């Protein structure tokens, strides 16, 4: 591209131009003032010549034509170095007046990548930066180390009214008021002078002026004098002045007050004057001067000899080490060369200029005049650029100049900036944007913050222009720029810079930077008073969880500060503080299923359904019969919407999380709802659609207000919580519709610390609402609810149901039901999941006091529960309240409930109440669901072992082992009962001390023995008196407070236990159940005594179907002198089973070894299968003697007696019959003998009727010890 066309080219053509120093008399100025202009202002528009088209001939011989030309008219008083303060003020003005322009687009959205890219290059960084650059450069004009600002000519202006004008010219140009440049001899005072007489037409006729002119011509020379007439128009006219000025307005000509007496021919006159001045005086003068200087330079410096001489001459050692080298007067050859170069530059003879600059640079370098050297380097770089050749040299020169300026320190610093600006422009012209930006960056370091901000911004733009596009650096430099804008409080610019950088950090998760940018942009917007945008930006950072605590609090505080300073409350859509976990959202609405508490809602629906299945009518039936009552059932056909009841709260559970580490208080959390009372399907559908697409609601902002407004249709609960740092809470919101219609839950609104109102809409995916059964309807968020007319509703709970109980704890509780509505409900049923733990009592039990009601003497009409209990009764207990019970509206109703902690462990107990409406309503019935969690602690472990009594028929020894597993509690045994009338329990006759065992302290275990007697078969005498009954009181205090076990609830619980302890009642003969009732020994007697009933069921007796015992004399007196003694004893055997039994008695003499051989030889006679004697059930049955038996055998090796009569006898026993088998023993010596070494082998022959389990089929019984004492009789 042609460098002259480039921006830098035009810049140079306009800025590096000959300067004309203007000297005016006050009167002349006054004349100009009349038309509201200073003299320079009046002329300056005409000092730019677009097409002056004059031939120019510099040092070389062939002329060239100069097209564009410009001369700078400057008052002599302005020709001096500017002090930086003034300059910086001017620059500050430029920047700050750009503020107003930037303000409007600050309100627009921040730019995105594409619209930044699509911008044309020029607009990337704002246009006023160019002006800024020029101003920055201007601050350096009229420096003494470079001459292109030195005046080329001098224009002396005298008014025609001045007294003796000629002399005026003289003292205008006297040195004491000339600029310092001339006085200090830095520049040649012999410059071209041009004399002008300014004539104001309104001051009188032109003749005076003409005379003066003639006089001047004669004295001052012929063609250096001119006459200029102005203000020739008669009266001040603003109107057509404008159009006449129009072409010149462009050149920065402003006449301030409208009064302007210049008319068109005045303007033309000025124009001609300037044209003539430029082309006929200035340019020729410069040409001529160039030639002269060139001649001198050629003579002194060109040629080999001169070079050497120059070098030698410069080698003097007394080179003063000043920053700008030795003082160069205008006579010095160096300054002449410089002038030559600059003139050549101004006349665009760049080769000539360049050659001179080169020449000069060596000299200055040798003189160590660094500042001058840098200036020369700079110019030569520009020359290279204008010549558009050898970029490398150009850059080298600029680089050189730049670094040199920097090296000489503060005096050259601003020059460095100028050089950098030119350099950067040069680079951008050549498309080397990256280098340009780096140059901008370098000079930005040298400048005060305001300037560096602008420079950094330009650097950023260059990064954007460079290829490949360097967005990150663009962003970074914008941030830096914005930062230093902020430092030099230019907030608008700061914001502009930051927000331009926003998009850079958007895509990548560089959250650190992103937060910083957003935060500052927001803050500064706030400072500027644009609060809504400020808040919009601050919202981005408010919920930053990764920042440090202090940062978070800082963000939050500023946010609140600005929000409060706006004065009004903000509605923020999707405010991220706190975070509502929408996935955890759950709507709880009660149609025909009602819940006692929130915990019950979370129980999975399937549990309820299987609990309620035979209690409620099938759901399909329900749906039809209540849907048909609806006037318009079309929307509900496909179960899209679910149902809630007017007047009953619809609850909504959601999790709230506080992402910050600071605790925030959230107030007024409430639902946004919409209740359309029109029942037609279309509106409902519309509602769903609008809800489904939550954007359009978001767009229709005022809709929130309407949501809040209609309080008469429904009421919403409002909740205040404080969320600690990082805390997550689960909250429940409620809305209570009041009228029939379609209720739509639209969203949540909340207030963050009383200042910000956040609201969020539920995303409702429409396909989510496809029916997934009741459970699905619950889980998936369906926010459309059909409100049906109010229904009666029961609320209920079990009074003081313990959460902790000891095993076996038995309590009487009451179930309280309350009907809040005004209609009555009827046909109440109850289903209990664990009847083992809870069973409903009878209506009469209510007023009984516990536990006295259980005592025997209380003669309540004991509804003895039938023993035949069906299986399904156990797995779910359906209890129908009496039909006549109706719970009236507003009435409360209580019903007794028995609680028994059956087994240790955690239990969750489900209750469901079913009731029907008295009046016909949309829903014929409802269910009240409630569930409790009970933790049952282990208390007493009771185990029983029963063994046959060896001495009596049909009597058993019971060993009861009780272990107290509690840590602290101690229990008092109260009563032991065995269920059923068949058995009688009593203490062992010998030891009554058993009753001393009253209390069992913690972690202790006792075992005690009882005797139980079968009083079913033969009702023995002592069954009559109360000494032995089915109950036995263990605690002192007599049989007065014996608990009635064959009466509800204990009996009921006992059946449950029986079922649950596994085995079902087979024959009552061989199994029996014990109930141990204990009392907790209360540490403080205040609390009512606690009753524990432990049920141990199906304790196995010895499996033998037969009993036997020996009968015979216990002491025999015999005289062994004559013969051995024979003792007749008999074995009484009773068959208690209902089968025939064949049985053999096997007596064995001597030791056990022989004893064991018996079966082998018996095997011939008896049927086989006798060997599979499972020792286990023997052990269980007769533990007592098993212990004693072996060592007795071992003690006596050979027995001193023999069984005489038979070695084995076979008998057959009918069911429930007895037989006596005589036996005879002959004894050889006196002593005490134990005739226990016999065995009974029996085999059961099952009758067709019943069958026996295998272990009872056949067996072996060891003989019981039977001691006989034989005495030596006297002769």
């Amino acid at each position, binding site marked *: 591209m042609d460098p002259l066309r480039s921006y830098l080219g035009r810049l140079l053509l306009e800025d590096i131009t000959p300067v004309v120093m203007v000297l005016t008399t006050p009167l002349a100025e006054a004349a100009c003032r009349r038309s509201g202009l200073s003299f320079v202002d009046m002329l300056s528009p005409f000092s730019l010549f677009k097409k002056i088209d004059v031939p120019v001939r510099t040092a070389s011989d062939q002329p060239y034509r100069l097209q564009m030309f410009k001369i700078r008219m400057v008052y002599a008083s302005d020709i001096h170095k500017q002090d930086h303060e003034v300059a910086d003020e001017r620059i500050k003005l430029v920047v700050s007046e750009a503020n107003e322009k930037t303000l409007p687009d600050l309100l627009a959205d921040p730019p995105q990548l594409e619209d930044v890219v699509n911008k044309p290059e020029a607009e990337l960084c704002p246009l006023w930066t160019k002006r800024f650059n020029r101003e920055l450069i201007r601050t350096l004009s009229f420096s003494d180390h470079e001459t292109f600002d030195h005046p080329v000519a001098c224009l002396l202006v005298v008014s025609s009214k001045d007294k003796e004008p000629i002399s005026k010219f003289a003292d205008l140009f006297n040195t004491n008021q000339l600029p310092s440049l001339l006085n200090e001899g830095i520049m040649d005072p012999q410059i071209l002078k041009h004399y002008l007489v300014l004539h104001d037409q309104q001051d009188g006729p032109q003749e005076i002026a003409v005379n003066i002119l003639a006089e001047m011509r004669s004295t001052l020379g012929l063609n250096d004098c001119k006459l200029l007439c102005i203000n020739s128009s008669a009266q001040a006219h603003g109107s057509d002045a404008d159009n006449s000025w129009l072409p010149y307005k462009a050149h920065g000509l402003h006449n301030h007050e409208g009064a302007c007496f210049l008319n068109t021919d005045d303007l033309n006159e000025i124009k001609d004057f300037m044209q003539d001045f430029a082309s006929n005086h200035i340019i020729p003068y410069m040409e001529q001067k160039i030639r002269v200087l060139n001649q001198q330079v050629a003579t002194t410096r060109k040629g080999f000899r001169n070079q050497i001489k120059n070098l030698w001459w410069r080698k003097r050692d007394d080179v003063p080490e000043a920053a700008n080298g030795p003082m160069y007067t205008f006579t010095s050859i160096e300054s002449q060369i410089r002038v030559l170069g600059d003139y050549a530059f101004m006349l665009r003879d760049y080769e000539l200029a360049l050659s001179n600059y080169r020449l000069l640079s060596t000299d200055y370098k040798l003189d160590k005049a660094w500042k001058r050297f840098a200036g020369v380097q700079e110019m030569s770089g520009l020359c290279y650029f204008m010549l558009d050749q050898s970029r490398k040299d150009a850059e080298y020169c600029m680089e050189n100049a730049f670094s040199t300026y920097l090296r000489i320190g503060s005096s050259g610093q601003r020059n460095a900036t100028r050089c950098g600006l030119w350099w950067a422009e040069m680079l951008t012209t050549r498309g080397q944007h990256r280098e340009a930006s780096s140059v901008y960056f370098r000079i930005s*370091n040298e400048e005060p913050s305001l300037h560096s901000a602008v420079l950094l911004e330009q650097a950023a733009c260059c*990064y954007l222009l460079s290829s*490949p596009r*360097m*967005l*990150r*650096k663009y*962003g*970074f430099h914008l*941030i830096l720029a914005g930062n230093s804008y902020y430092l030099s409080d230019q907030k608008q610019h700061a914001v502009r810079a930051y927000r331009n950088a926003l998009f850079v*950090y958007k895509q*990548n*998760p*560089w959250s*650190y*930077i992103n937060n*910083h940018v957003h935060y500052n942009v927001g803050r500064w917007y706030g400072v500027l008073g644009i609060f809504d945008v400020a808040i919009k930006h601050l919202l981005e950072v408010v919920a930053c969880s990764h920042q440090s605590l202090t940062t978070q609090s800082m963000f939050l505080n500023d946010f609140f500060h600005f929000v409060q300073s706006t004065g009004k409350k903000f509605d923020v859509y999707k405010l991220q503080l706190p975070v509502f976990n929408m996935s955890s959202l759950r709507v709880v609405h009660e149609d025909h299923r009602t819940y006692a508490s929130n915990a019950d809602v979370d129980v999975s629906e399937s549990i309820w359904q299987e609990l309620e299945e035979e209690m409620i009518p099938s759901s399909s039936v329900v749906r039809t019969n209540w849907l048909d009552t609806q006037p318009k059932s079309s929307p509900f056909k496909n179960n899209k919407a679910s149902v809630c009841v007017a007047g009953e709260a619809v609850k909504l559970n959601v999790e709230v999380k506080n992402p910050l580490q600071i605790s925030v208080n959230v107030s007024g959390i409430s639902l946004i709802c919409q209740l359309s009372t029109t029942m037609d399907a279309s509106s409902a559908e519309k509602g769903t659609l609008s809800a489904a697409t939550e954007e359009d609601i978001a767009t229709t902002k005022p809709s929130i207000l309407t949501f809040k407004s209609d309080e008469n249709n429904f009421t919403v609960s409002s909740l205040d919580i404080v969320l600690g740092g990082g805390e997550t809470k689960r909250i429940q919101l409620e809305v209570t519709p009041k009228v029939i219609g379609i209720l739509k839950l639209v969203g949540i609104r909340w207030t963050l610390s009383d200042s910000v109102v956040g609201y969020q809409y539920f995303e409702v995916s429409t396909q989510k609402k496809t029916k997934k059964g009741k459970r699905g309807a619950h889980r998936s968020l369906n926010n459309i609810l059909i409100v049906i007319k109010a229904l009666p509703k029961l609320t209920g709970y079990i009074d003081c149901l313990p959460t902790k109980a000891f095993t076996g704890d038995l309590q009487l509780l009451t179930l309280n039901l309350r009907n809040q509505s005004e209609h009555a409900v009827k046909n109440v049923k109850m289903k209990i999941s664990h009847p083992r733990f809870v069973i409903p009592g009878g209506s009469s039990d209510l007023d009984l006091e516990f536990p006295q009601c259980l005592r025997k003497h209380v003669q309540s009409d004991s509804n003895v529960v039938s023993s035949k209990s069906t299986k399904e009764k156990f797995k779910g207990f359906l209890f129908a309240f009496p039909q006549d019970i109706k719970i009236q509206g507003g009435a409360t109703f209580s019903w007794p409930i028995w609680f028994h902690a059956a087994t240790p462990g955690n239990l969750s107990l489900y209750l469901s109440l079913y009731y029907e409406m008295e009046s016909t309503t949309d829903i014929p019935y409802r269910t009240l669901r409630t569930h409790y969690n009970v933790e049952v602690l282990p208390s007493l472990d009771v185990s029983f072992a029963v063994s046959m009594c060896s001495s009596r028929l049909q009597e058993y020894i019971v060993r009861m082992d009780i272990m107290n597993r509690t840590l602290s509690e101690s229990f008092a045994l109260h009563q032991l009962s065995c269920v059923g009338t068949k058995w009688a329990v009593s203490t062992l006759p010998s030891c009554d001390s058993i009753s001393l065992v009253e209390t069992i302290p913690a972690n202790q275990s006792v075992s005690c023995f009882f005797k139980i007697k079968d009083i079913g078969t033969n009702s023995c005498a002592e069954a009559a008196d109360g000494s032995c009954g089915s109950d036995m009181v263990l605690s002192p205090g007599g049989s007065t407070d014996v608990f009635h076990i064959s009466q509800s609830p204990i009996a009921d619980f006992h059946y449950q236990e029986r079922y649950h302890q596994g085995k079902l009642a087979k024959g009552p003969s061989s199994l029996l159940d014990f109930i141990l009732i204990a009392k907790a020994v209360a540490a403080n007697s205040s609390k009512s005594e606690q009753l524990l009933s432990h049920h141990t069921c199906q304790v196995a007796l010895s499996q033998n179907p037969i009993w036997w015992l020996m009968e015979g004399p216990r002491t025999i007196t015999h005289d062994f002198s004559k013969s051995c003694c024979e003792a007749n004893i008999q074995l009484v055997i009773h068959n208690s089973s209902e089968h025939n039994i064949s049985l053999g008695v096997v007596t064995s003499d001597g030791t056990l070894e022989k004893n064991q051989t018996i079966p082998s030889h018996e095997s011939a006679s008896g049927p086989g299968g006798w060997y599979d004697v499972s020792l286990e059930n023997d052990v269980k049955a007769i533990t007592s003697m098993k212990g004693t038996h072996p060592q007795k055998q071992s003690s006596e090796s050979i027995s001193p007696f023999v069984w005489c009569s038979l070695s084995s006898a076979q008998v057959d026993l009918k069911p429930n019959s007895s037989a006596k088998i005589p036996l005879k023993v002959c004894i050889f010596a006196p002593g005490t003998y134990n005739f226990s070494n016999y065995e009974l082998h029996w085999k059961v022959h099952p009758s067709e009727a019943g069958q026996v389990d295998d272990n009872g089929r056949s067996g072996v019984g060891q003989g019981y010890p039977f001691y006989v004492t034989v005495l030596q009789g006297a002769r």
Partner: protein
Amino acid sequence: MIVCVAVVGHQNNPLYLQSFTEADDALKLHHVVHCSLDVIDERVNNPKRNAPTLNETFLGLLYPTENYKVYGYLTNTKVKFLMVTTDLDVKDADARNFFRKFHAAYVDAVSNPFHVPGKKIASRSFGARVSTIVKSFGSGTTV
């Protein structure tokens, strides 16, 4: 001394950024690292300017700011390591050595089965190892 090391994923998302300075110039370091990514992109996309080290993992000095030097390293898997140092003359050998060790540490970190590729590296052991590597930087000791 090294003031900051960073691991940047192949989508220029920061995976790990640790600064070793007392002053909280984290933001500035973030900026410096973020800017250096531009240089890396430039180096990789038009590698004409450094032909000999055409596709070497070590990228050398990226970004001499006024008081920082940023060195870069680009793995085969387009993961970028950056090291910001304040010392003026860093021997290339040192930098290479540093990055080799750092790369080894990184590989072990991402080989952790619980590390999700493309997510930030949270492993504490990695951090400890990196800090030791950083401490040993310059002094020829090997970690």
